[in-house]
């Protein structure tokens, strides 16, 4: 079948899952540390966003197996995520959050 090549690959081992959980815990600790470090205040938003996206990708990719499953599922999820993101941008723009009037 044409879709076979796109079908699910083998899931990671338990050892990989534990490793991912350790990385998630370390990233969370880093987030909290960054929050308390006064010198990092100017970069706070950027650093926290990068760490948040990294944690998001780890859970979705490894724990939810999106990295290993069919690309159709990535498309279904990605579409919902994209629409949600566009709704957020539109609403924030509507309320003047990007122009400083909100």
């Amino acid at each position, binding site marked *: 079948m044409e879709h076979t090549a796109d079908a699910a690959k083998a899931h990671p081992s338990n050892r990989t899952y534990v490793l991912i959980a350790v990385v998630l815990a370390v990233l969370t600790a880093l987030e*909290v540390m960054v929050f308390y470090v006064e010198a990092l205040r100017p970069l706070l938003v950027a650093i926290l966003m990068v760490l948040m996206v990294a944690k*998001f990708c780890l859970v979705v990719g490894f724990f*939810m197996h999106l990295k290993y499953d069919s690309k159709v599922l990535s498309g279904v999820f990605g579409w919902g995520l994209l*629409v949600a993101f566009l709704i957020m941008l539109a609403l924030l723009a509507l309320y003047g959050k990007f122009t400083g009037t909100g």
Partner: protein
Amino acid sequence: MEKPTTGIPHRKLAMWSFIGSECMLFGSLITTYLIFKGRSLVGPYPEELLNIPFITVTTFVLLMSSLTMVLALSAVQRGDRKMSRIWLFMTPFLGLIFLLGQYLEFSHFVHEGLGLSRNLFSSSFFILTGTHGAHVAGGVLWLGTLWFLSMTGRLNKENSETVEIAGLYWHFVDVVWIILFTIIYLLQ
């Protein structure tokens, strides 16, 4: 296991579609929170009440529940009944601890005078975190049911897809909290 021509089980595709729609729900609620942020005319204000060390602990608990969830799925897929029962118990148990933390946090806020309609922060905060908490509560009930099925021998390798579907939901709840933790608590 029934599969369409795409090679993806129907229920799995349905769950991912549901998760996609949930992105829009939480996206709208998060945006509402961001729009109302800093617009409260009366206190208490978020910086006076949000307890970062406490929430960090409950966040850690929810993250670890995602680990126990994948370990449960792995055990069910291997046909390891003993470990699947242990992990299927641990996951909703950790979810309950998270909900207890949320209850304590809400109680503290109300005690400090921050009721649901006190100001714009309280309204958007309670709606957003409350909706997430309701999702966690639903997941706890779902996983508790699966644990009961495993204890009565009605959950095995052949129907591991049932655990996988519940796991997708549980991880999504975890993913939402990853975003809420940053946006509400760390980006005050």
